[in-house]
């Protein structure tokens, strides 16, 4: 299964509907919504943390968080 953690720099994915209950509330509030487009902008060494753009918000999150949010490689 693809997650945000499996994106490469510049790649885009779409947060899957199944993730809804898993996404931490804080991230949800910051714009990480199911269906939203996620782009990986930059990654620190060992891919942790990563820097993403989702729904117009530029966020840095840790790999452990990114790894639980499932994505689809193409729009639903």
């Amino acid at each position: 299964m693809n997650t945000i953690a499996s994106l490469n720099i510049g790649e885009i994915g779409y947060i899957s509907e199944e993730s809804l209950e898993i996404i931490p509330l804080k991230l949800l509030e910051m714009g990480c919504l199911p269906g939203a487009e996620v782009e990986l902008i930059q990654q620190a060494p060992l891919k942790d943390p990563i820097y993403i753009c989702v729904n117009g918000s530029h966020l840095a999150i840790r790999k452990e968080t990114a790894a639980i949010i499932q994505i689809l490689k193409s729009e639903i």
Partner: protein
Amino acid sequence: MSKNDIKIALIGNPNTGKTSLFNQLTGLNQKVGNYPGVTVDKKLGKSKLSATQNAIITDLPGTYSINPTSLDESIVLKTLLKKDIAASPDVILVVADVENLKRNLLLFSQIKDLEIPTVLAINMVDQMNRKGISIDLSLLKKELNTEVVLISARKNEGIQDVKEAIIRCHVVAKASPLCGINSKIDPDYFENLKKISPNYSLYELWLMVTQNNYPDTITKEEKEKLLSFKKDVPKLKKYQHKETIYRYQEINKILKKTYIVDKSKAKDLRSRLDKIFTHKIFGYAIFFLILLIIFQSIFDIASVPMDFIDGIFAELANFTRNSLPEGVFTDLLTEGIIPGIGGVVIFIPQIAILFLFIAILEETGYMSRVVFLMDKIMRRFGMNGKSVIPLISGTACAIPAIMATRTISSWKERLITILVTPFTTCSARLPVYAILIALIIPDTKILGFLNLQGLVLLLLYALGFASAILGAYILNKTLKIKARSFFVIEMPNYKLPSFKNVFYEVVEKTKAFVFGAGKIILALSVILWFLASNGGDEFKNAEQTVIAKVENQNLSQEEIQQRIASTKLEKSYIGMLGKSIEPAIKPLGYDWKIGIALITSFAAREVFVGTLATIYSVQADDEDTTTIKQKMASEINPDTGKKQFNFPVGISLMVFYAFAMQCMATLAIVKRETKTWKWPLIQLFGMAFLAYVSSLLTYQILS
């Protein structure tokens, strides 16, 4: 504050310009910076809305929603849930960033559901053109059912509109919810919740349930009923998620009609800069380079004005001595106050340069990039990427730095950061380092361009950071606190620093440094001078004793005077005090005069140089007054007959200052933030012990 004043609370996402707007409305100069989490406490100010209407404005920390996850955010929740008439806001001014309106409206929609009159100020409209954004304002007003104004807090545009909108909104004093959470999620559930009390809006009750935070006005009965809703935690969580999704759906509907972004217009400077600044190799190299440049400049640029000021104070003392009649008062001025104050003022150039660099880093948005780069490393040592901000801003002062830890949500990581922040080299240590480096490190260039003195200074800063990190490692292993670590930060846009913000930041901080240290040293120098110029019988007989002793030694008149002066100082009250602690500090290489300076430094480190300046001035007691640097350079250790400030002593002193917790104000703030004396006391004694042992080792090895 009069009863008619409108109470306004400024609420919004982090970094949207709330404090900038607050400053415009109140004329104050609160700290503004381009990263989330600049404001971490509430701050009140007065504003004149119209000829007849005044307002009390509260600036609050930024938050993404009313569901707080850290201390700074929970201040917002507490302000909103307060029900007493005096404190609860009459009007809420929500500040939103035009570039990310969607996310900003989430918080707005929550606030709206509290049914308090609300004005929406969309800020940074100066960026709209560049980003290709256009807004249908009148339609947006209608859809959101509120006053909406477009402003630019930085450019001082639209401020008058804000004031008028607030007055209009206050007069109407009616508000209706925007999203009405109940019907969409679980009508029955929320219907039952609403039945608990008619005194609160549904959303307020929902917040009490989810946040476990109750206003003082809640009755016991009501609270019990609310608690029954808390039993099913997974359900609460699920409903919170659903609520958020639902809010976003409503917001999307509204924005589709009113907010257009022409993506082709958005020039992307951000992504180009981020490619280098957050790069996994270059990012770190650039960070190191920036630090190197800062510490080099502190020495390279500041040394000229510093010597200039030093000279001026020597002249001033000279001039005062020559133009005033001889007497106790003149002595107090020329030997006590002028050198003491000089010992603070001389460091203004260095401090100002340091503050300038920090202000620029904070205003450009670079700070958050460092947070991103450092999170993994910090985590390994029990801290959080966000700990970087306290550690960097701690180079100015530990007090705001410790406050800044409020953004860290895990208590363990926050506590560790609070405990190790005093290790970072704050601006109060800079004077001590600067003068000692100037005395013991030659002013040469290595590799042709690196200033050796600047390099040593960089090493001392590195020592500070390294001990902070090492301290964190040890604390992480020993502290038995369970806390879940979570990390998410927003990366702000890069911005050109606003000249005004940087200027005020530097001026305010430098002023605080000079007046803070100035007040202490003013009082201290009077006390020191008095204690150094008075004493018991031995002091009064010093002249005869010395003359009797040197009778047959064939000394010149000048040398005899010198001996008398130094014997007098030794037998004065301050000499007696210093001598009594000398045995404890002799193994570190210090004499009793340095000992006195160590003691006064426990009030604040930056008075070290001023204290020595005062003591040496009393001792010199001669007509031609020299600069502080010369005084320290020519101080002779009577035991060895060599210079007092030689290499081993200088290094040992710097090590002592690097580790010792010599700052009352920091201890007080740690007490406030941790709510017990336990942690500040552990800091005080732990760091004192570390300082003593390390300086002892340093001196014994080097000499």
